[in-house]
């Protein structure tokens, strides 16, 4: 591949290396990403379940 220089004047390898702090920087970003994606996806699934559950309850006319 060779040294492809990005806008910051660094190579891709340098970018992922993060000056030797890769383990800390990328795990911080990784955990942040996982938590934020989970928080956004959960309500989508929950909304669908809630609508289905309520619709079933209305059919049976036993809304509690």
């Amino acid at each position: 591949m060779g040294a492809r220089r990005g806008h910051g004047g660094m190579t891709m390898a340098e970018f992922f290396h993060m000056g030797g702090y890769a383990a800390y920087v990328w795990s911080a970003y990784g955990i942040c990403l996982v938590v934020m994606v989970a928080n956004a996806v959960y309500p989508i699934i929950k909304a669908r379940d809630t609508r289905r559950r309520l619709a079933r309850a209305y059919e049976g006319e036993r809304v509690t």
Partner: protein
Amino acid sequence: MWTFFHKLASPPYFYAFAGRLVPWLGWACVGLLIAGLYGGLVLAPADYQQGESYRIIFIHVPSAWMSLFIYVVMAVCGGIGLIWHIKVAEVIAASSASVGASFTFIALVTGSLWGKPMWGTYWVWDARLTSELILLFLYLGVIGLQSAIDDRRTASRACAVLSLVGLVNIPIIHFSVNWWNTLHQGSTVIKAGGPSMHLSMLAPLLIMAFGFKLYYLMVLLMRSRIEVLERERKSEWVRGAVTAA
């Protein structure tokens, strides 16, 4: 303007309005986060003292700000619900707790991962870290209380009281770096005399912070819509909304 707020306080209008707003917020948030990450991870130079490790700041500081902001929103809306019995305020308070807890968790974990290479330890019981950990426990307390009480409106009142009491922790967190000798560094953005940060670092930080704010708004509205359906399930409009889809 006021009629708009009056309408927004009515659950069916809020449900429809929030549903229309969510996709726009989602795209705006994705755009801002991509811009902020590009600015923070690629364009911004390395720090002259901390090297590349400082780049954790672009998620650490916005999530720490959000952890405080969301708590205040939750407590204030809880208070409004407690005093004026406005349903939508109760819904917003109830839907904020888990996002707030998530941001507090992110702030603590990213701070810990930043502390290890810079301070030589993942954790230290200094004032800033300890008060932020207490904030996480307050959020978890509110979530626990919410799920322990079956009637949602009673749960809202109990949670409102707890979150209003916990509000005292917010200024403690903010000023902890001034009041006590902490290992945690002082403010670099919100302080007298303006931010002591170069624009190439400050700009992506503020873009990320704005992106996080829109993200909160988006998740808040998505959760609030579910909460509104649950609370209003005995009314006609909910029946219409769920059986039509």
